[in-house]
């Protein structure tokens, strides 16, 4: 009998595992993918890394000769999900903005009506701030360094006379360097180019070396210990801490981590008229062996798509039919500018500048290598630009209609130069809408049970959501033009299901939420959810990982309070930073074994 079983070792699961391990609980973490060794498993090649079918960062078995795992997506869309320790943080950009205060209960600012007020967080922003601070210190989060592409973004914002944000909390329309989970360039990092030059490698270089490979997984500076990798993805930060809890916590107990372990069922029983989680069944991805484990508490951290799937496959109750519903994705779009001058688009942290518009959403610059760049230019719900609009093909302050670039136009953009492009990602404050959902597919089961189906009704989004996206697209065009773009495209992306939230949402009302304010399932005792799916809404547009990690930290405290007779620690203790030398030393021993 374990104290706690955590299902999934991504951004949320690794946080709960680390926090509970730090309190001395006996924690088992089950992860469907592998735990990559960047030195041997990763390269800096786009397709080798990011191909959603075959890349080392995909949703599929660690053995890449086997097919990826199937999910049904019955629309023009791409569900970008990752298996493996670190989950989606393996390829995230490290951006760690806080959510806007207006998406929390109790907010009474003058813009209070501008948000998704029907789906607020069931606690206040002030309640979450100590957890934000704890995570920001642990990762750690820093104000981003600036490269050329950031200077382009800032130039545009300056010319528009926008306000500069100088605080952690966002309260007004403003721009700023990202707060990100990337160690700042130190020593000779960021000052030299090359591959073999020792000045781009550890130990002369520390922190971010501006290599430009955030999306392919950070293992830089070359030669650095895993725990000192610049980008603080969960595989570099929280999971090493979970595995070394005895080294940095006086009462810590290292977690047990099993990889290639696909959980197929949450086991439960009836006690006193209530459904109570009692453990899990899981299947070895490599051998096919079935296992069961008992636990006092189960934490579901498999993500917005797999959590509902597992819930349904486990036959757990769903009395209000909200399991899997309210799936939000920030209704992304792209504005892409062609510049005559160098923009440094492929260099540096993938995104180190942003602008926020509370009540609307946010925009941020993104540097892309060529193949992903071509994907970004060809992924559209507006048909082929200049040929057909697929019922859309919007016109506005950008050049020509929205749509996918193709043919000679696409070739012209490619040959214009990867480092003379400039991309802005639009992250919309989109409403929680029940018809956007993860459910079970009618297509056949795989070896882990019926598979997930993700429906995103792109053309049925709420009027507020659509208006927000239009507002942000126009703002992005203004910034790009002010920065000096010669030509500006707007793509009109279909759902790129990546900034995923709220498919198992916590909420104020039991009518439209799955979790209570402690992230415990309303109808299954001792079952908690700790990842983006637990978020109450789309946060107003800011990138979700930091908030997910703060909420997961809060959930870890709630687990200890409710079921292990302990007290919280975030308000009474100081966090240990994940770059602590004790973690590095012990993790090297763990990894060697």
């Amino acid at each position, binding site marked *: 009998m374990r104290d706690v079983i955590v299902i999934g070792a991504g951004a949320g699961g690794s946080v709960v595992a680390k926090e509970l391990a730090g309190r001395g609980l006996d924690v088992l973490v089950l992860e469907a993918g592998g735990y990559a060794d960047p030195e041997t498993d990763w*390269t800096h*090649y*786009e*397709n*080798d890394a990011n*191909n959603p*079918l075959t890349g080392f960062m995909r949703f599929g078995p660690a053995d890449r000769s086997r*097919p990826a*795992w*199937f999910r049904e*997506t*019955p629309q*023009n*869309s*791409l569900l970008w999900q990752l298996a493996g320790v670190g989950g989606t943080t393996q390829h995230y950009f490290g951006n760690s903005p806080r959510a806007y205060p207006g998406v929390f209960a109790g907010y009474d600012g003058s813009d209070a009506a501008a948000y998704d007020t029907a789906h607020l967080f069931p606690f206040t922003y002030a309640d979450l701030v100590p957890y934000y*601070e704890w995570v920001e210190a642990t990762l750690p989060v*820093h*104000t981003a*360094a600036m490269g050329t592409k*950031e200077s382009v973004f800032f130039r545009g914002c300056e010319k528009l006379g926008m306000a*500069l*944000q*100088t*605080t*952690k909390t966002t309260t007004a329309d403003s721009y700023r*360097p990202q*707060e990100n989970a990337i160690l700042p360039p130190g020593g000779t*990092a960021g*000052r030299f*180019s090359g*591959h073999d030059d020792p*000045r*781009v490698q550890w130990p002369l270089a520390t922190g971010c070396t*501006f290599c*430009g490979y955030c999306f392919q997984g950070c293992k*830089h*500076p070359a030669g650095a210990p895993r725990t000192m990798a610049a980008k603080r993805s969960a595989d570099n930060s929280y999971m090493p801490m979970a595995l070394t809890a005895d080294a940095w916590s006086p009462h810590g107990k290292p977690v047990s981590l099993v990889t290639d372990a696909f959980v197929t069922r949450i086991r439960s029983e009836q006690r006193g008229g209530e459904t109570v989680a009692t453990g899990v069944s899981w299947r070895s991805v490599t051998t096919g062996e079935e296992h069961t484990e008992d636990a006092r508490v189960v934490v579901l951290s498999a993500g917005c798509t797999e959590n509902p799937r597992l819930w349904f496959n486990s036959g757990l109750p769903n009395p209000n039919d909200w399991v899997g519903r309210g799936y939000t994705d920030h209704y992304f779009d792209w504005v892409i500018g062609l510049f005559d001058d160098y923009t440094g688009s492929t260099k*540096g942290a993938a995104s180190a500048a942003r602008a926020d518009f509370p009540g609307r959403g946010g925009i941020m610059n993104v540097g892309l290598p*060529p*193949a992903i*760049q*071509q*994907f970004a230019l060809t*992924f559209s719900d507006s048909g*082929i630009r200049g*040929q*057909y609009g*697929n019922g859309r093909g919007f016109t506005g302050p950008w050049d020509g209609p929205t749509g*996918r670039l193709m*043919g*000679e136009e*696409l*070739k012209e953009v*490619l*040959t214009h130069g*990867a480092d003379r492009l400039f991309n802005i990602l639009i992250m919309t404050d989109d409403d929680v809408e029940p018809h956007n959902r993860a459910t079970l597919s009618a*297509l*056949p089961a795989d070896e882990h049970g019926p598979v997930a*189906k993700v429906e995103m009704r792109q*053309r049925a989004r709420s009027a507020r959501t659509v208006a927000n996206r239009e507002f942000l697209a126009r703002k992005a065009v203004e910034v790009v033009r002010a920065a000096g773009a010669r030509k500006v495209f707007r793509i009109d992306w279909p759902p790129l299901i990546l900034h995923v939230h709220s498919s198992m949402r916590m909420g104020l009302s039991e009518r439209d939420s799955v979790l209570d304010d402690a992230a415990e399932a309303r109808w299954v005792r001792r079952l908690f959810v700790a990842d983006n799916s637990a978020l109450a809404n789309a946060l107003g547009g800011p990138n979700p990982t930091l908030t997910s990690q703060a909420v997961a930290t809060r959930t870890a405290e709630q687990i200890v309070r409710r079921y292990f007779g302990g007290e919280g620690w975030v308000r009474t203790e100081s966090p240990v930073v994940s770059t602590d030398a004790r973690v590095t030393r012990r993790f090297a021993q763990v990894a060697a074994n």
Partner: protein
Amino acid sequence: MPHADNDVGRRAFLARIGVLGAAVAAGSLLPGTATAAPRPVRAAGLTDVVAALRPVLAELARDTLNGLVVMTCPGPDAYSRAQGTPRTEPGALEARATDFLIKALDEYVPFPDQLATPLTQSLATGLSGTPLPSALLDLPLSGVRTLDTALRTLLENDDTLPLSSLIAMLLNLVATEVNPLALGGAFLSPFARLSYADKCRVFEQLEGPHAGLVALLDANLPEPLRASVSGVLQFVAGAVLEFAAYGSSCEWAVFDPATKTISARPVGWQLSGYQPHGVVHGWDDFLGYYQGRTKVENV
């Protein structure tokens, strides 16, 4: 034995998905054509025809997808010329985007049989009504029937038909709807014969919210698969274009998975000027901190 009217419909259908033309070009599948080898189909038997059809379908898929990938990255090749957008720099074919796409579709897309089967059966049901070039009309009926039976055998056995062939047939079918003249000409594939603008019309048909073809295919299916197939078709239509663009620009063609190295500079890197000296461990692009700000206030 099929009815004579049905024979006409099947002949048209086989031509429109590109199979009839490809079979004629292959020469060994249909007796009595100019290039056909003197081997009677009836004597060969259905099993032999099915076996002989497989490589023909593979070639048809390759030809069709050649016509597709140059939509995303035209170059100095015949397919780019045929669509009316030749370029002097290397393009999708030099980047082996067709191989990338075929390998991805056939080996890695976890396309369930339960989707493939109704889709292929919808294709097997076919559409008719397009006038055929006389060369195809002159083919002996018995050979066409055998070919039709062989294709149905393949289509109805969902284990045997690669997804790339299925998508190619779909593209060709719509290509001949967009432009009936695509039934004849250079290349094996009707789709590859289209102009760039007509190829765009094909995708308009496939991904449109009310596309007639999608509705037609859907109508052949039982619930709950009906919406799934139309949705997946829209997904596939987008994905093949995006994947073709991705494949034209990434390192796949020159990457050796065993050594995790590349043997030449990828076409996408050449075209875009990406990392001119290869993979780096760092760039000298650190400009400092915006207005010297290394931290913000914690409020």
